[in-house]
C-alpha cells in the first residue's frame, strides 16, 4: 500500500493561496485596525499553517491516525502552556515577578 499521491494542481493552488495570504497580511499591517491588527495577523498565520499542515504535510490525506493524535496532543500542550502562563503572568503587571 503506497501513500496517496496528490495532483500537482492542488500543490500550486495551496502555494498561490499562501502567497496571497502573505501579501494580504503584510498589507493589513499598514492599516490601523487597533486591537484587530493582532487578531487579523494571527488568524491569517493560523490559516496559512493549516494549509501547510493539511496539504503540504499530507495530514488531510494520511490514513495513519497516530500522526493526527501526535498533532492534536502537541496543540493541546501548547494551548495549556500559553493559556496557563498568560492567565498568571499576563495579569501581574510589568516587572511584578
Amino acid at each position, binding site marked *: 500500500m503506497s501513500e496517496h499521491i496528490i495532483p500537482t494542481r492542488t500543490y500550486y493552488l495551496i502555494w498561490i493561496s499562501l502567497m496571497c495570504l502573505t501579501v494580504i497580511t503584510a498589507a493589513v499591517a499598514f492599516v490601523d485596525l487597533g486591537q484587530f491588527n493582532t487578531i487579523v*495577523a494571527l488568524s491569517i498565520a493560523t490559516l496559512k499553517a493549516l494549509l501547510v499542515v493539511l496539504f503540504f504535510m499530507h495530514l488531510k490525506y494520511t490514513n495513519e491516525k497516530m500522526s493526527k493524535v501526535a498533532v492534536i496532543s502537541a496543540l493541546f500542550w501548547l494551548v495549556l502552556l500559553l493559556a496557563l502562563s498568560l492567565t498568571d503572568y499576563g495579569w501581574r503587571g510589568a516587572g511584578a515577578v
Partner: protein
Amino acid sequence: MSDSPVAVEQAHGPELLHHFADPEQQRAAASLGMWLFLATEIMFFGGMFCAYLVYRRWYFAEFAASSRTLDIWLGTINTIVLICSSLTVALGVRAAQMGKRKLLVVLLILTLIFGLAFLGIKGKEWSDKFHEHHIPGPQFDAGEIQLNGHPVDARSAQIFFSLYFAMTGMHALHMIIGVFMFVILTWYAWKGRFNQRYYTPVENCGLYWHFVDIIWIYLFPLLYLIDRKK
C-alpha cells in the same frame, strides 16, 4: 502477511530492517517518530512564543517601538521565499512517490537555493541590527527606538531584541540543519537510493522543512506585523 518468508524477502528492497514485519510498518513507524519529534519541537518553540507574549503584554510600548525598527520588506520577502521552498519540497516528495529521480534532484536543489536565500536575507537583517547597535548588551543604543516620537525604556527594548535574536536565531539554526539534511538527501537522490517503495527520508525531511516554515509563519506577524500601527 500471508506470503511465505521467501516471497516477502523478494517483495521488498534492501531498505527493510529486520525488526519490521513489512515496508509499510517500517514507513508508518518512521512517520510516527517524525510527528512525535515535531510535537517536541512545538513545545521547544512554544516556550519562546510564550515568553514573547508575556513580555509583549508587560512592555507593550517598548515592544511596539522595537518591532518597527525591523525591515518589514525583508521579512515579507523571506516569508515568500520560505513558502516557495515549501512548494518545491512538497513537489519533491511527490516526485519521490512517483520514482522520478531527476525531477526529485532538481526540486531538492531548488529547495536548497531557497533555503540559502532565506538565510542570506536573514543575515542581512542581523548585520543591519549590529550596525544600528540593536544587539542587547553594553553597546545597545535605544536612541532611534521611539514610539510616536517618544523615547522608550532601553532595558525593556533590549528584552524585545533578546527574544528577537533568540527566536529568529533558533529558527535560522533549524534552517541550517535543514540545509545540511537536504544536501545529504540530494546526494542520496542523485545516487538513486529512493524509489516508489522507499522514499521515507524524503518524506520525513519534508515534514521537518514544512514545520520550520510554519514556525516562520508565526514569527513573521508576531515580530514584524502586529505592532506596525498603534
